[in-house]
């Protein structure tokens, strides 16, 4: 296994920050070895489906499936997605759930995240001690992709901590794709531009969004996200 998590030397600092804000970033999360391979895998090997919200349902379709639709149907699809997004209920981005059959680099990564030592560190930073495992999905935001405000805490689910690990180097905040946090009333608190190899951890009750990626973004925004669960 080549993917490894760096020794985290400032756990107390991270713990204090999390306890104060319910959000924290762990920079330089993965060791250099394997990191680049994982990044290139995300860019070239992973098959992403487009996830979107339509008619009250979360749907998924590949580029090929969408392209196979008549052009008027395709246009209608995006119009419907946008109409719902305008009223605050929507998303459109590429996703690939990490599961059996996923490429080795992704499975290795998820195994590392689920190792006893990593879970211990996450418990320490967050002071949430009933974490037992993490799931994961690779995500890709292309021009026009977005995720409107929501919380990740769904009743009946066992999600405790959401995470986002960034895999895009040299992102510019002009391009959008910001992970933005809000007060309940919509006042922005933090806006974080994607940072390479930076792990963001936040409480699943935090209102957040990913701002629309600008039509002039020079690259795609890749990350691995998921939840540490009880």
């Amino acid at each position, binding site marked *: 296994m080549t993917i490894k998590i760096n020794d985290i030397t400032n756990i107390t600092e991270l713990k204090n920050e999390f306890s104060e804000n319910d959000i924290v970033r762990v920079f330089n999360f993965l060791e250099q070895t394997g990191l680049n391979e994982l990044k290139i895998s995300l860019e070239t090997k992973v098959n992403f489906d487009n996830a979107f919200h339509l008619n009250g349902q979360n749907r998924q379709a590949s580029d090929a499936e969408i392209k196979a639709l008549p052009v008027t149907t395709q246009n209608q699809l995006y119009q419907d*997605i*946008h*109409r719902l*997004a*305008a*009223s*605050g209920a*929507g998303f459109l981005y590429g996703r690939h759930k990490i599961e059996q059959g996923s490429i080795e680099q992704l499975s290795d990564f998820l195994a590392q995240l689920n190792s006893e030592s990593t879970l211990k560190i996450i418990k320490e930073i967050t002071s949430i001690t009933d974490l037992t495992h993490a799931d994961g999905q690779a995500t890709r935001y292309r021009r*026009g992709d*977005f995720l*409107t*405000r929501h919380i990740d805490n769904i009743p009946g689910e066992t999600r405790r901590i959401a995470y986002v690990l960034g895999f895009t180097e040299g992102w*510019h*905040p*002009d*391009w*959008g794709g*910001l992970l*933005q946090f*809000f007060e309940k009333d*919509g*006042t*922005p608190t*933090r*806006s*974080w*531009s994607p940072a390479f190899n930076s792990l963001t951890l936040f409480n699943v009750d935090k209102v957040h*969004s990913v*701002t*629309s*990626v*600008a*039509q*002039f*973004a*020079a690259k795609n925004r890749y990350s691995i996200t998921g939840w540490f669960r009880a």
Partner: protein
Amino acid sequence: MKLYFNKTDNKAKLRQDYSNNGYVKLEHALTNETASFIHEKISNQKQWNLVFKNKGLHQDSNSADVEAWDEENKKNLTNLIHKQAENTFQYFYETIPIYDIYYDKLMPGHFFNDIVKFLNSEPTLNYFREILDAPEINFLDAQITRFKAGHFLNCHNDDVDGKNRVAAFVINLTKDWSVDWGGALHILSNKSEIEKSFSPSFNEINIFKVPVDHLVGYVSPFATGQRLSITGWLRSGQNPKKL
């Protein structure tokens, strides 16, 4: 109608905020009547300039004319603008240059002149001088701006030689905006991280010290509203257009 600022009883706090952070938010800055009156006038405005850069030069088009173009030409224009947004400073939004309109006497008798007179009046300038602890402020310039779906103002620091800009201001006059639509004013820290974000709002003034890197975030293609504001700079030195 006469335009007024609200009386503020927390000036000490605002001064402290500005002095600590280099930016400050003035909520309910204008009287509600004043803000609503200006908002209504601006919302009904038909003529706007569409601005962007092409090959490094500022372009100023009649927005209504561009709107009347066929889809292919419009698409070519946005492609041209986007292409030059990837690696160079770019912007794309609508404006009304009310400072020029007033001092160059372009639209005598128009309401725009009243806004500039109001903003450049001694009581207004004193209000800003006091909160910013900047007695050197001598005048301000201003433009009305409108951002709709697909508009943006990329990162820049407002520092232009000879303009004597002390601080930038944004008088937010946007109603019914959803924060999911983007268009926030993002102020960056030295490390190119976003330090503070202000979503479009109604009757709130954001002020920040110049120079500092900042941007107006890309407005989502699904946004259905318009982000309206009066924006400009508080400047020291002589007003070059002073009558």
